[in-house]
């Protein structure tokens, strides 16, 4: 039996696509030497699971390098996953070869970010739209022609554009041609990789509205990849926020934007400039850069930048004290706390450092006990200009002993908006998980 024969009929609202434990690691280095000495893995996507129902729009959002595009391509089996399974209309895609999957591809289409380079400049618009139908041996030649013209109308272009070339069109129009091509085989799923980010704002709205209308009419399921949280809020039913190859949070759109629970999502939403000068409030900026996906942080991958890192249980500190210790830890890790050393190689007396540290981070005095001893030692390292030691010490003792570093968080909590559920990968929710 071929893969196509196993395709099940999926009704609206039923699971169309099921992704479980999907993982994609790339070799950071290839070639002879890497073959001999081995190379480190880039963990682009790591153990990700979610489902998409028919007729739904799910968005994957995240910053560059978070793995959202890799995830989408792995879902479509354009990239072989390292591990995990993907089931589309009941067919286990990972069980079949590329060749065997080909007939299935008419049900899964993709549109790309750049409307310039995704259309062959030597082909007429008509041919471009007919190509996928031809590839899947659908309809007769005359029928294909008629359908292509009809599709042009459906995406709010003119039938007469059939004989024109892509260069005659603006970016927005080209993205509509892409949409028409993706619709040609009447697919169930359309994966849209940054569909409007190359377009001007006024044109973005046109294309987004067309995508919405088409979905209503034909019941398409969209998996949208985007870095633009405003666009996502407008078109998605559910949103998955990705950070460094993991899904940090997944919830219905309204719930995610109105009630974000993961510190990363909160920081992300906080960072978007709002188009209203009256909501210019002070915002917390997320410090530092995204760590490398080679040897990513253990446990929660956001822990190295998280403003809510959880207190290690072995440290006996009040909430206020822990806040101060955490601030101090981050300052040392990023070396934003730099005393004025007298000369190139000379250190400073420990007293000078502790005074400065007390003034900046512990105005009510350094905590007692173990934490206090560690801070003293860090100060001695800073005084001797042994920054690496100081960084290592705070990281080892204040961050890596936290539950955030020990296990990967995965919790599901009840949603506040609506009656759905809300997946949040943060240990702050370990007590209210269901």
């Amino acid at each position, binding site marked *: 039996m071929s893969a196509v024969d196993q395709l099940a009929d999926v009704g609206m609202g039923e699971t169309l696509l099921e992704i479980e434990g999907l993982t994609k690691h790339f070799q950071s280095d290839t070639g002879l030497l890497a073959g001999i000495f081995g190379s480190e893995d880039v963990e682009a996507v790591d153990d990700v699971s979610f489902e998409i129902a028919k007729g739904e729009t799910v968005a994957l959002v995240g*910053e*560059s390098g978070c793995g959202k595009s890799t995830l989408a391509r792995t879902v479509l089996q354009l990239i072989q996953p390292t591990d995990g399974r993907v089931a589309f209309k009941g067919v286990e895609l990972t069980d079949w070869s590329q060749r065997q999957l080909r007939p299935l591809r008419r049900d899964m289409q993709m549109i790309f970010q750049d409307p310039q380079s995704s259309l062959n400049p030597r082909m007429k618009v008509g041919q471009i739209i007919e190509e996928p139908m031809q590839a899947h041996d659908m309809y007769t030649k005359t029928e294909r022609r008629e359908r292509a013209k009809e599709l042009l109308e459906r995406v*709010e*272009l*003119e039938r007469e554009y059939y004989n024109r070339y892509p260069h005659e069109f*603006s970016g*927005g*129009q080209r993205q509509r041609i892409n949409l028409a091509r993706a619709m040609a085989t009447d697919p169930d799923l359309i994966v849209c990789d940054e569909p409007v980010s190359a377009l*001007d*704002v*006024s*044109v*973005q*709205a*046109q294309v*987004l*509205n067309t995508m919405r209308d088409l979905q209503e009419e034909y019941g398409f399921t969209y998996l949208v990849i985007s*870095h*633009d*949280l*405003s*666009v996502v*809020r*407008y078109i998605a039913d559910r949103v998955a926020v990705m950070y460094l190859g993991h899904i940090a949070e997944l919830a219905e*759109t*309204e719930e995610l*934007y109105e009630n974000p629970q993961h510190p990363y999502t909160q*920081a*992300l*939403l*906080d*960072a*978007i*400039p*709002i*188009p*209203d*000068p*009256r*909501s*210019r409030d002070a*915002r917390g*900026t*997320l*410090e530092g*850069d995204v760590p490398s996906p080679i040897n990513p942080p253990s446990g929660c991958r956001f822990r190295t930048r998280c403003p809510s890192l959880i207190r290690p249980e072995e440290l006996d500190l009040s909430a206020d004290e822990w806040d101060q210790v955490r601030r101090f830890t981050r300052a040392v890790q*990023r*070396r*934003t706390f*730099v005393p004025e050393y007298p000369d190139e190689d000379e250190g400073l007396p420990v007293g000078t450092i502790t005074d400065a540290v007390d003034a900046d981070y512990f105005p009510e005095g350094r905590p007692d006990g173990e934490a206090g001893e560690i801070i003293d030692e860090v100060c001695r390292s800073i005084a001797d200009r042994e*920054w690496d030691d100081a960084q290592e010490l705070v990281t080892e003792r204040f961050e890596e002993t936290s539950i955030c570093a020990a296990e990967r968080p995965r919790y599901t909590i009840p949603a506040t908006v609506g009656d759905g559920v809300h997946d949040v990968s943060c240990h702050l929710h370990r007590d209210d998980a269901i």
Partner: protein
Amino acid sequence: MAETILEVTDLKTQFYTERGVVRAVDGVSFDVKQGEIVGLVGESGAGKSVTTSSVLRLIEEPGEVVGGEVDYMGRTIVGFEDTGEELVPRDEMLSETQMRDRIRGNEIAIIFQDPMESLNPVYTVGGQVKEFIELNRDISGKEAKAEAIEMLRRVGIPEAAERYGDYPHEFSGGMRQRVLIAMALGCRPNLIIADEPTTALDVTVEGQILELVNDLQEEFGTSFIWVTHDMGVVAEICDRVNVMYLGQIVEQGPVDEIFHDTQHPYTKALLNSIPRPDRTVGDLEPIEGTMPSARSPPSGCRFHPRCPDAREPCKEAEPVFQQVSETSDGTAHRASCLKHEDVGYWEADALEVEVEK
């Protein structure tokens, strides 16, 4: 009120192409006051970058600044006089050498969108910042290096002294953009032109940069011209805003007025077409069609073929860019729309929006 440092009047820049003359900037007037962040906002092709390049006289063949005045603190960057037959540059217009030695870098610096293209990949980051400082200020050697490190530290490069010898590819995109800001600031310019400096960056990194600009502006009192297409960024940092459409400024005013007392239909349409991060929007109202070519702009008001408020006179009469209201502190709010003129707009029939799909 703060002193006006840059005054641009009726600036015109054209490009001569095989397919005709492109009037990329067609009579643009705006000014910048000391310590102010002035926004230049519009969609691609509106003429934002050509405007800023013209201000710095960086327009190259086949383009040319063909008219208007640019005055920077009493110095004439662009100025013409009419000999009866043609416009010729006036004597007091700065020479190319004077522009290079006295204006670019040390008085007016520019930061571009792509930091990788603005940094030389084969020189160290620190060396490039130092060279810039040496060229534009009277310090050199050890002192310039110390200043370069200090600037890198100021813009938030961690371990600035250690990273001084790194190459551009060893920095992330956000870090590279910080280096460019450090370079610009290191020359202690009075005005920085920032051309879409955060467009290529992730939103959290953009947040860091905007925060940094706010801090630095407070500290050094530097003025900025901020070129962007992002109304969110405009709302976040600008004091005054110029909205451009097809080579012209269609609305100009304090940021709050632009968003809350919008006077030009294009600005209004632009604001209605953007999805909001902070609230759920039922339906976006896109602007129909696309911006026409600057080679053959529409007659009358250039926005009339796409304007939802267009009426008969808009096809013929070219609107005057004029003051439409004044804020309490005396800042002008200008717009070019026939609604504010006495040409029978209100009595005329509405036009159908006629655009090619």
